[in-house]
Structures are given as structure tokens and as C-alpha cells.
């Protein structure tokens, strides 16, 4: 009887100290690798830190289920960003409008008139331009700056490759340093 019990008990009360599955190990490694980039991207969509951390957990749990079911594992970085992007937009809809833009993009450049150094003026000018960009353009720029390739950006934002390259070129042209 005791032998049967020792076999059955782990079914009912799984031990938390058990060795993680290979998929769990892999997802933990991917979490370490991508956490910073994905979290920064989600925050750039205007979510508070706590919501962004929540979404990150959902993203990687979804990835764990995805990989546990032996689903395709090509372009996992694009997959993670795409799920994060979609969940972040969904969460943002439930937030108040005041929370909907990153604080850094809501900065009033006129707040520090005494600091009229060239570098600061340039940064303020660029902040204004970035804040005024259509969200899709801003997302493309941020994803590219996080190191995603065009096909990964296209998969994340559900765009064609051509649209990604055209959007990036347009956004960078707007950011171009003004002739002095």
C-alpha cells in the first residue's frame, strides 16, 4: 500500500522542488535574454511598470504553453514581441487616457528655459518629433532600436516587409538633424 501511495502522491501534490522541465529551463533562459528589451518596449507603449511586469509574465507563460505543445519555434524573439505588443495594447485600452502615453513623451520642453544648451535643444526637438510620430512608426523605430530585424518587426506589428522599411525610412527622415 505504501508503495502505491508513494507513486500516487506526486500526482496530487507536485513538489515545487522538482527539477524543471527542459521547456521550462528554455523559457527561463529566454526570459533572462529578452526581459529587458520586451519590458522596455511594453513600457514605451505607455503602461505603468506593474502592468508591464504582469504582461511580461503572461507573455512567457504563453511561450511556455506554446513550446510545451511542440508548436513552431522559429523566430521566437519576434513571437515574444508580438504577443507582448498585443497584450500591452489590450491592457492599455483599460487604462485611463492620462496613462496612455509614456511620461517621457509627455515632457514639456518649455519647462527648463534656462538650460538652453545645444544638446538639450536637439533632444527636445527630437522628443517632440518622436511624440508626434504615428504610433506604428514609433513602434517600428523602437523595435528596430531593440535589435529586431525587418521580418521580426513585420511579424510583431503584422505588417509587410515593404511597409516596415518604408515606415522606418519615413520616421528617420523626420528625425534628421536640421541644417544649422
Amino acid at each position, binding site marked *: 500500500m505504501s508503495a502505491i501511495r508513494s507513486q500516487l502522491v506526486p*500526482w496530487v501534490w507536485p513538489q515545487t522542488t522538482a527539477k524543471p522541465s527542459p521547456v521550462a529551463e528554455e523559457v*527561463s533562459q529566454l526570459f533572462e535574454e529578452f526581459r529587458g528589451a520586451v519590458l522596455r518596449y511594453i513600457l514605451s507603449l505607455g503602461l505603468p511598470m506593474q502592468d508591464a511586469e504582469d504582461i511580461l*509574465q503572461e507573455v512567457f507563460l504563453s511561450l511556455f504553453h506554446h513550446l510545451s505543445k511542440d508548436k513552431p519555434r522559429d523566430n521566437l524573439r519576434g513571437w515574444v514581441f508580438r504577443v507582448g505588443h498585443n497584450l500591452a495594447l489590450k491592457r492599455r485600452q483599460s487604462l485611463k487616457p492620462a496613462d496612455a502615453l509614456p511620461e517621457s513623451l509627455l515632457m514639456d520642453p518649455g519647462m527648463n528655459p534656462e538650460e538652453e544648451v545645444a544638446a538639450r535643444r536637439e533632444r527636445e526637438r527630437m522628443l517632440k518629433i518622436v511624440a508626434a510620430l504615428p504610433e506604428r512608426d514609433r513602434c517600428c523605430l523602437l523595435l528596430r*532600436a531593440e535589435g529586431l530585424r525587418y521580418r521580426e518587426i513585420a511579424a510583431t506589428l503584422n505588417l509587410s516587409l515593404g511597409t516596415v522599411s518604408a515606415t522606418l*525610412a519615413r520616421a528617420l*527622415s523626420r*528625425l534628421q538633424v536640421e541644417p544649422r
Partner: protein
Amino acid sequence: MKHHKHYTDEELLCFLDGEGDAAEVIHCWQCRVRMAELEKSVASFVHLKQDVLDVELPSGAGPASLLRARMSMYKPGRRYAPVALVCLLVGLYFVWPERRAVASYLPDQRVTPGATRLIAQDQVCVLSASEDERKPSQEMAKQVFEQYGIRNPQPRQFEVDYLIAPTLGGADDVRNLWPQPYADSVWNSRVKDALEDLLRAKVCKGEMDLAAAQHEMAANWVAAYQKHFRTKVPIEAHALFVKDKPWE
């Protein structure tokens, strides 16, 4: 001589990003100048992102632990037998009724509802340090392990912890004790100790009623932690904080 067209910004950016063959561009000075301008815009945006847009991120240790704990609860290989599992649970319920409670970061309310002793709010704030170090007797600890169906507890795996801490008026009573995972769980006894200290400080500053603090600890200390520290996951420093010793 072959006449070269000028490339569009889009094409030039593709070359810059390694998405196309840039060899042809070197023949056209105008295209190279335009490419350099685009490169400058890239650099400006990257600096802007690093200096202004990127916020400092908190440590990932807590979230990583939470993710590992959540993944450990998922057993993909066992999805095929949910009915068998239910039958097994029902069977075990009758065969081993004393095993209904399971050690967890939250106690089984049926076994550990929490118990308090008579103490005034101002008395709580002048309790001696020994109150903070109070430990249940071995006999009581044994009784608690039995109630939770733990027949052979491993040393250092649990802390037989007070649900309502003695420093908050918790009683030395088995109804106020449960075997809490000492360090393995995300919500372990170290994290709870940090909450106990915070609630006591709030009570002593008059920011909180003693009864309210006791109720919050007894009802769901994890929810209380999340509320008072305004976080969904334990703060890393708390997870590393060692105050009470494990059961040995």
C-alpha cells in the same frame, strides 16, 4: 558607361540595416552622403532612447522566480487523464482524510484560521525583542506537521510559522501555526517577515488598527503584502532577508 540611378531613402536604409546589397551605393556620392545622414538620424534616436526614453528597470530576479513557480504548476504530460486525476483525488480524500491540507505559502483556513491573544494596541509597540524571536515548541510543531499530513518533514525545508505574528498579538496556538516553505516558494517565510515588520510599524505609528493588521494577516498575507508594498511580486531584498530560522 552605365548610368546609376539614385537610391531612395528606403533602399538606402535597407542597405544600412544589412537587408540589401550595398555594393552599388559606393559608386554614387550623393547616395553615400544621404546614407550618412540616415546613419546620423539612427545614432540620434539611439542616444535619445538610451538617455530619455529607457527607464531604469528593476531587478528581474523576483519576476524570474515567479515565472519558474508558475511554470512548475503546469504538467503537460498529464493533460490526458483529468478524469482519472479527479477520481484519484476523491479516492484519496476518503482514504487519507488527514492529508487534505497541503503545505503552501498560504495556510489551509480550515486548519489554520489564525488566533490572537488579548493585547492592547499600545502594548504591541513595547513588546520585548524576545517576542520577535518566539518559536513554537517541538510538540506543537509536530502537531502542525501532522495536521498538514507531512509525515517526515525535512530539516530547513519549512518554518513552522505563526500566521498572525506574536509581535502583532498572534497566539501560541496550533490554530495560528502552519508549515510554511522556508525558501523554496516565491512567497516564502522571509517575505512574510518583511510584511510583519511593516504592519507592526504602521500599527505603532497609528496608521493602522491592530485588529485590521491581524485580520489582513489571517485572511491572505500575500494579498496584504501586495497591497502594502504595492507590488505583485516579492521585492528582491525581502526574499533575501533572513530573520527567523527554519524548522530543524
